[in-house]
């Protein structure tokens, strides 16, 4: 992943998002309707609730070439299915089974909890996350 020099222009981010959180209808454009409009190299795949996000999905995103992964659900406290986003957050924090594998780079994995009225804020955060991922990748190269 980090063999070639990664920078803000080619770092890839996968957002696995609850379909009810940031409303991405009309926000998606391009290939297969999965590119996040306005943010380069950011892709979105939707699930009915962030509680459905399996650790394996996150692993699969990293294995398929994502440099950073965002799991996104509604604001904590407000889940259409009561507890999905809390469960998802607990899995990201490693306190709820099934656990995320240790090989997954936790520092390049992020949980975002936002509602559909926060689309612009969401895009800024994805942009910022890309910067964080670039920094993190530099650190990892140094360590190696």
């Amino acid at each position, binding site marked *: 992943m980090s063999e070639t020099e990664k920078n803000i222009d080619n770092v890839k981010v996968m957002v696995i998002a609850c379909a009810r959180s940031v409303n991405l209808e009309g926000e998606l454009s391009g290939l*297969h309707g999965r590119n996040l409009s306005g943010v380069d190299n950011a892709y979105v795949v939707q699930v*009915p609730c962030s509680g459905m996000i399996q*650790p394996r999905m996150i692993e*699969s995103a990293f294995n398929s*070439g994502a440099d950073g992964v965002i799991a996104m659900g509604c604001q904590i406290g407000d889940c259409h299915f009561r*507890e999905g986003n809390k469960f998802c957050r607990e899995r990201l924090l490693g306190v709820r089974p*099934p656990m995320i594998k240790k090989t997954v780079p936790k520092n390049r994995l992020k949980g975002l909890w936002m*509602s559909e009225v*926060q689309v612009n804020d969401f895009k800024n955060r994805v942009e910022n996350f890309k910067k964080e991922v670039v920094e993190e990748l530099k650190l990892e190269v140094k360590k190696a």
Partner: protein
Amino acid sequence: MISVVLTKIVREGQKVLLRIEDILNKILGSEQNVLYYHGAIPNFFMWMLFLSGLLLFAYYTCTLEAAYQSVEYITQKIPFGDMIRGIHRYAADAMMLAVWLHALRVYLTDRYREYRIIAWYSGVALTVMMLIIGISGYILVWDERSYIIVKMMSEFLGALPFVGETLSHAFINDNVISNYTMSMSFFLHAGISLSLLVMLWIHYMRISRPLVNVTWAIGCLLAGIVLVVSALFPATSGPEANFTVEPTYFDIDWFYLWIFPVMKAVGYPLTWLIVLPALVVVTILPSLIKSKDHEAANVNANKCVGCKLCSVDCPYEAIYMAPRNDGSKFKEIAIVIDERCAECGLCVGACNFDAIELPFNLSPVVMDDIRMALEEGAEPVAA
């Protein structure tokens, strides 16, 4: 057509709520966001009412001759009696208001139909029960207002065809207001109050972990508001009921007694013609929006290891574990109760063995989507 309009209302309402929610989250934090306790808040007021009601009951006398005096005694002689009475009065209003806000929120966030239908029906029942409790509570004071309520209520019930005559005797026996009126009112007030608990049990059915308690901070805030209002606007009785004088006016508690001005304005039969259809519409509201095709989660018996994680995570008690005797080395298997399933996928997220899947959202398809987006999306594509 109705379905389309209602769906639109719900969509727009949801956005308004989300904006309020966002602001409250920034001010209060999600832990103390009152919006997230919209169901627990009426519950909190209910316990305030049980407690203050019990204290009032200690000095209340349930007879025609003594009821009014005993309420006056509580208000004037018992230490903090006026406060307890005020709390009982205003917590009741607060509870009704909180219930309406709760109903509005679950309606606007589309959380009242399909797999939540039991909660909606029982919620309507709970609200009607609260109205009866409130109206009968105002009879117990036995001031002029109580007298008008008894008279109008009996005539109102009497206006119903077939059963009306019998029902009106619930309050007035042989056209005479007697102690029987009082004991009946007390029975309705206290008896239905206690049966709220039974109806609440039904209300919470199918919810794995209902949120029934507010936080300490919110509890203190709500109790504080009720206390301040009770101190600023003491609850008082009107003049004692007097059968020789026909009272013409009384203060209306709009949360519980709104039906009396309606009766006065349009007459009894028309009030029934407004109230009953309204109740029917509210009850069938969930059926007015067309449901999507329902395809419950299903379990792959070959992959299920009986780890229970999905049944623990299911928010609607739709998954239970059953012993298996199909020769598998595992002792239990997860079973999905189709009509309870919300198709939320929480069970899928809890399963590490790909043993449970949503037919409309298969996890292998999600994984493929992720792979394809990343691999094929490598080249930036113009929109």
